């Protein structure tokens, strides 16, 4: 094999090796944020007018024992969440009343937090990054898996009608908004992302307009 041919082979092999199946990935935490909403078409939202929202945000941790109180999100975050829900409901023309004043709907915020641990393999820039769930169980000799952890969280906004409450049946949900992303970064940045995404949940649900 002559030298020029060998150079071409080396060049093309290099191009192949350095090409990744996934050439770009998110650089910033907020690029992982998603906002999901859904509603029940059986309800006419214009038939409702008043709403109530609790003062705190429940953390979903699993089943509770009888009489056990659920954990709450710290007021630093909880007050921001509840306040933002109020602002958006006001903007859409709803009237807030106390929970004891028979509101047409309740907007119930709750939160879920999960710690994730992943292993990945770094090949010194030679093989690129391969996450285990891509299906690669091997790693290049000399390079060993590295572990990383990150916390993800979801804020769930659920709208229900108290008149539908039943102790035996599942509670019908009129509207739901789910905000999902990484719970990483400073408290201030998390609050900023959270309020932006709460706004987005209502923005993409204009059918709630009175």
């Amino acid at each position, binding site marked *: 094999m002559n030298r020029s041919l060998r150079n071409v082979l080396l060049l093309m092999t290099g191009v192949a090796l350095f090409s990744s199946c996934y*050439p770009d990935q998110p650089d910033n935490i907020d690029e992982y944020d*998603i906002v999901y909403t859904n509603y029940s078409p059986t309800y006419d939202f214009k038939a409702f007018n008043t709403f109530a929202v609790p003062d705190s945000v429940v953390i979903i941790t699993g089943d509770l024992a009888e009489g056990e109180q659920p954990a709450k999100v710290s007021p630093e975050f909880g007050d921001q969440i509840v306040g933002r829900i109020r602002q958006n409901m006001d903007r859409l023309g709803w009237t807030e009343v106390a929970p004891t004043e028979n509101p047409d709907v309740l907007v119930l915020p709750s939160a879920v937090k999960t710690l994730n641990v992943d292993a990945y393999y770094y090949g010194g820039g030679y093989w690129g990054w391969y996450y285990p769930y891509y299906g690669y169980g091997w790693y290049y000799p000399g390079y060993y898996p590295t572990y990383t952890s990150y916390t993800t969280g979801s804020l769930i906004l659920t709208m229900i009608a108290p008149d539908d409450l039943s102790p035996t049946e599942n509670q019908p949900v009129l509207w739901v908004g789910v905000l999902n992303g990484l719970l990483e970064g400073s408290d201030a940045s998390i609050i900023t992302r959270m309020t932006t995404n709460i706004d987005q949940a209502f923005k993409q649900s204009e059918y709630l307009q009175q």
Partner: protein
Amino acid sequence: MLRYVLPFSLLLGAPFVSKAQQNIYMLEYSMGFPVGDLNDYINEPSFRGFNFGYRYMLDENRAIGLDMGWQTFYELKDLATYTEGTSSITGIQYRYTNAFTASVQIDQVFSEGKDLRPFIGIGAGTSYMRRTLDMGLYRLERDPWQFMLQPEAGVSLYMRNGNAVILSANYYLGFKTKELEAQSFLGIGIAYAFSD
């Protein structure tokens, strides 16, 4: 400029004396241009492609062989809201399709004895289309094997040392499966070919 042009031109002018039943190997860099459903999913050309080809010369003008390739398509979709029925979702999407292709090819080569030899060909094989959608912390993936036809056309430029540079266009025509619509793209490539 002339001193660069002259040596290159000296490479030409010596017809590649091919022998019957000759083995030819090709290494190709390729660009991909999605069409149809693949274009709806990723509306960006791909500059990440690599192909390997082998041809067995049946005689001076006909060849049969094998093509194998890999083309990566990618597009970043800015923050947007997607609605289907009563549900809506907002986020940034990272869309990928990795196309792995393999086919048996038959070629007809023209202009025997010339430096520039056009050719046309047709092939059939399979494509493994790995379509990935990353949104937020979630990944959706579909990866069907599709039957594939691969018509091709190009021109070989033979050099004094008997090797050749080949410019070619390949149309990778996928066929619909239950899992995914037909995935097709046009590949434009430049290859270096050599024989054993």
